């Protein structure tokens, strides 16, 4: 493994990157597995496995209709896979029941971006623009651990970090604001109030480039910083200081991430940050802006091309007749044949095996047994299925429950494009051949589609061929890739979508001339603080929040197979203030049971003198009884259906 000089990471790799090659060899799947009559997973041939799956799909759908088979995708899949997965669900399965783990990741930020700007591209400017910023506010982001090379772009700025924990990112910041978990929106409102009272609003910008400020001020007027202070715990003086740093900077950015987004009012919270950024005149101006830091490898592209319940390729809405007609035309089917919107991720998982839910599920690139909220309930639903098929390259916790496991290629073994956090389309070319017995996810989809009676030419398997079709399907959509070609990417062009034609240079910076509404104005969205979906009480007196560590990725299915990473962080831990631990009878290094209203997780106590007294933190990368998601609250954001991963009421006990 060698790092490459590239604008986003500047040749930097963290431990996950350095060790990623070991995934190509060790402990990966090389043969399909079929659950035998003895209940164990047994090796099978590809034809056996795919024919079995197709047969079961026919039987289940024959009995219970098209929606009785569902699909669950992932934000780590390439654009080509994500696109083909959406097409497979709508055309081959004819099911409306498809969603993906990006719902748990980017959906709140995406929804808020669409509401305010008319379009969601995580960072609507190149990441290198941030290099020259004087001030950057990071709301709910811990880049020093979650994407360390990115922090190079922050080295010149005064950084303000909003995080309940004193993370390495907060430690390195010029100013750390540590709100009580679940109160970020009150903080954003207090800061907007401060901006108005201190005369820091960019009135000319607000007048000429936005609409809706008055309604937002009506609400923010009720959040004077001293009131926000009592709710958030962030000193009014610090709120004012943060706003001053942003307002006085000649170049300033507001960036959000999962910490502020994964809430039952996540969209509102992001809208609160966007409102602040708009009031200060940042978005759509060169040298400043608002963005969200996309998480998974293809978290941006994965949300654009149709593996989302309500979406068709090109970031089109599935309930828009024009969008349906266009995509159906590309796919060679009638618009009426396309299903409508389906359930969002948690609702889809929660309904599995119930009378109204699906009986069969195909999972690609996701491990919901570990990563879904209220994981015990989700595991129970997966176990109740008549058919569970998992395509993965490792035997994940979800794969262990499957009736059929299909071994597929991983990053270095396949071609494909990914769209990064700044909306730039990257071509990742095959570096090594896959091991014998391993096929691409696209082979799996084509193999199943043909067995389900689809014409073979409708499901190409070569990445470039699929991409050619994606170009047509996305043409004219918000995320227009029609001008992107493998040839241009191979030639080294830096193409940021939209790229509406092959002679178009791409769009590194959006919104400079106007936002994506007919009138070109950005929308202030009037939002008020409501607080987390559940409250603390004497039985559950602490706020539990969840997140990541540097050494592990997502559910840990990959990184827990890398010895160096496991040496560094081998098991789940709970970060807790020493006083709070002592009151619960817990020592540093002892085992705690962290209990919520939904379940409990057993974790090693890690003393943290800097953490808030009312807060404990758990990383979510670990399996079994160490799954942080055993306690998380599946309360969903009404707009984006994002679950509330980042805050639930909990207590600590000694684990016996």
């Amino acid at each position, binding site marked *: 493994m060698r790092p490459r000089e590239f604008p986003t990471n500047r040749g930097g790799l963290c*431990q996950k990157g350095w060790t990623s090659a070991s995934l190509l060899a060790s402990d990966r799947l090389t043969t399909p597995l079929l659950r035998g009559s003895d209940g164990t997973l047994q090796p099978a041939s590809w034809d056996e496995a795919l024919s079995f799956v197709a047969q079961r799909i026919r039987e289940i759908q024959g009995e219970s209709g098209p929606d009785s088979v569902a699909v669950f995708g992932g934000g780590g899949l390439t654009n080509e896979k994500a696109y083909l997965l959406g097409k497979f669900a709508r055309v081959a399965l004819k099911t409306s029941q498809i969603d993906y783990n990006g719902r748990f990741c980017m959906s709140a930020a995406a929804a808020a971006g669409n509401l305010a700007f008319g379009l969601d591209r995580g960072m609507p400017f190149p990441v290198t623009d941030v290099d020259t910023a004087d001030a950057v506010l990071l709301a709910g982001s811990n880049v020093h651990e979650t994407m360390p090379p990115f922090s190079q772009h922050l080295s010149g700025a005064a950084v303000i970090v909003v995080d309940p924990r004193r993370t390495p990112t907060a430690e390195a910041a010029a100013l750390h604001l540590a709100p009580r978990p679940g109160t970020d929106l009150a903080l954003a409102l207090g800061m907007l109030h401060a901006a108005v009272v201190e005369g820091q609003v960019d009135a000319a910008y607000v007048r000429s480039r936005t609409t809706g400020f008055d309604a937002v001020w009506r609400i923010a007027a009720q959040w004077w910083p001293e009131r926000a202070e009592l709710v958030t*715990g*962030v000193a009014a003086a610090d709120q004012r200081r943060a706003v001053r740093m942003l307002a006085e900077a000649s170049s300033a950015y507001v960036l959000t991430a999962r910490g502020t987004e994964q809430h039952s009012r996540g969209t509102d919270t992001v809208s609160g940050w966007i409102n602040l950024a708009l009031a200060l005149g940042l978005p759509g101006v060169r040298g400043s802006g608002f963005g969200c830091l996309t998480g998974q490898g293809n978290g941006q592209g994965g949300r654009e091309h149709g593996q989302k319940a309500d979406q068709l390729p090109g970031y089109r809405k599935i309930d828009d007749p024009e969008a349906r007609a266009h995509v159906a035309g590309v796919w060679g089917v009638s618009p009426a044949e396309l299903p409508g919107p389906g359930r969002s991720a948690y609702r889809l998982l929660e309904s599995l095996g119930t009378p109204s839910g699906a009986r069969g599920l195909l999972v690609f690139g996701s491990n919901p047994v570990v990563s879904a909220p209220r994981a015990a309930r989700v595991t129970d639903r997966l176990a109740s299925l008549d058919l569970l098929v998992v395509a993965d390259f490792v035997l994940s916790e979800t794969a262990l429950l499957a009736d059929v496991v299909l071994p597929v290629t991983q990053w270095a073994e396949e071609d494909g494009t990914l769209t990064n956090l700044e909306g730039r389309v990257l071509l990742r070319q095959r570096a090594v051949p896959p091991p014998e017995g391993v096929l691409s996810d696209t082979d799996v989809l084509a193999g199943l589609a043909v067995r389900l009676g689809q014409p073979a030419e409708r499901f190409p398997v070569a990445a470039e061929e699929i991409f050619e079709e994606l170009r047509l399907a996305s043409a004219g959509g918000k995320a227009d890739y029609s001008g992107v070609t493998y040839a241009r990417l191979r030639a080294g062009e830096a193409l940021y979508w939209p790229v509406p034609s092959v002679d178009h240079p791409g769009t590194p910076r959006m919104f400079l001339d106007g936002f994506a509404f007919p009138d070109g104005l950005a929308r202030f969205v009037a939002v008020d603080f409501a607080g987390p979906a559940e409250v603390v009480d004497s039985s559950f007196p602490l706020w539990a929040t969840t997140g990541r560590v540097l050494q592990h990725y997502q559910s840990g299915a990959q990184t827990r197979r890398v010895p160096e990473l496991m040496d560094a962080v081998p098991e789940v831990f709970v970060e807790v203030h020493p*006083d709070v631990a002592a009151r619960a009878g817990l020592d540093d290094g002892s085992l705690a049971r962290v209990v919520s209203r939904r379940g409990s997780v057993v974790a090693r106590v890690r003393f943290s003198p800097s953490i808030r007294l009312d807060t404990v933190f758990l990383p979510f990368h670990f399996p079994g009884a160490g799954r942080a998601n055993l306690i998380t609250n599946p309360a969903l954001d009404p707009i984006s259906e994002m679950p509330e991963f980042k805050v639930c009421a909990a207590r600590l006990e000694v684990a016996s």
Partner: protein
Amino acid sequence: MNARRVVVIGHGMAGSRVASEVRRRDPLGERVALTVVGAEPHPAYNRVLLSAVLAGALKPDEVTLQDSVWAADNDVSLLTGVSVVRVNRSLRCVSLSDGTSVAYDALVLATGSTAWIPPTDGLLGSDGSLASGVVPFRTVDDCAAIVSLARPGAPVAVLGGGLLGLEAARGLAGRGNAVTVVHPVGHLMERQLDPAAGAMLASTLGTLGIEFRLGRLATEYVPGDGLVLDDGSFVPADLVVVSAGVRPDVALASDAGLSVDRGVVVDDALRTSDPRVYALGDCAQHRGSVGGLVQPAWEQASVVADLLCGTNPASRYSGTPVVTRLKAKGVELTALGDVHDDSPDVELLRFEDARRGRYAKLVLRSDRVVGAIMLGAPDAAAAVAQLYDSGSLVPEDRLGLLLGRAVGVASAGPADQPDDAVVCRCNTVTKGALVSAWESGATSVPGLADATRATTGCGGCKGAVTRITEWLATRQPA
């Protein structure tokens, strides 16, 4: 469904909040048909922000809460510029100053309070109205009057060194007025502060140009000239701002025969002695205490709305742990609870730094905050206020609690770091690993990077790795 008729008397902070909380629960007006009567001709406005208006930071129309457009959009019958002259409980209707009347099934008193005018000769004219050049600090009209009378550079006297008086004084000083605060007690904000904190606050405000006459009563107002104090001294003033306290406005309630003490007496359901009549905010007296701050009023409004709409019949108000924050630019003051408690079972922590205007006092009982004063210590204040508000146990580290983030530990140099200290977080490289690599021949930063991958992630540890190489190069052999 037949909605119940609810009439709210008062369209201030409490009354308007009842209206918005009711419509939050009953957006279509299916449960409650709402009428709100406000005596002021303006839309409801946020009284908390009047000091910002006085300071010139906000315009009067920027502090509007709900106006007639909101009322129309939300199916609220809003009557402004008209007052209730009588509550007829037997007929269940209120009579208005325009001669009409409105019937109710439930009535909410949110009549607020009025400024108390001290008995200084000359403040009141012969007809009982305020003399010219005398303005209370209570309403948005008062604010406008103060701003128009307080010409830049002109002397202004503020009667009353409580929270609002000081906010007014700060705002006027910021406008360029020569402000003198006359306060009858020996130290400022005596309800919330001890004498030491009061003195330090006076000194902090003094640096902003405000003068104080403490422990002095104004005996006479000479219109257009100033105030004569009880020691015979004179305070010049083109304008006298009266902020000497408020009195709950209970006239309608007493006339209607409701139980009234200092305020309208209410129970935990905010009901008066007539269960069809609720009262909240500044006019209400709950468990012996009367209001004066917005936070209790808004919490009460939420309970009243729960009960009026029937969305939570068990909703009750059990009091608010009040946190007082002075909103004055350049001064960070938080006061809460009982700061005068010196009984033997309390734990008292105190820090005083007169030179920098910092004062922190914490009164703890059984590891919980029962009182605090934090002046010039905003980080600690925010944490203490939350601990008090939530009734949580305080940390063992009392010094950290008292001083906030001011308490820090200098990070150890390379020689003193333990071997297992992580130097490069991106690649989990410890000091021990770097030392081993050095001893195996990697004696430069690039060499250490090749051997351990330290510095190859975000590069943030380059400085630390460089310091370790320097230390390794110069250290004595073990």
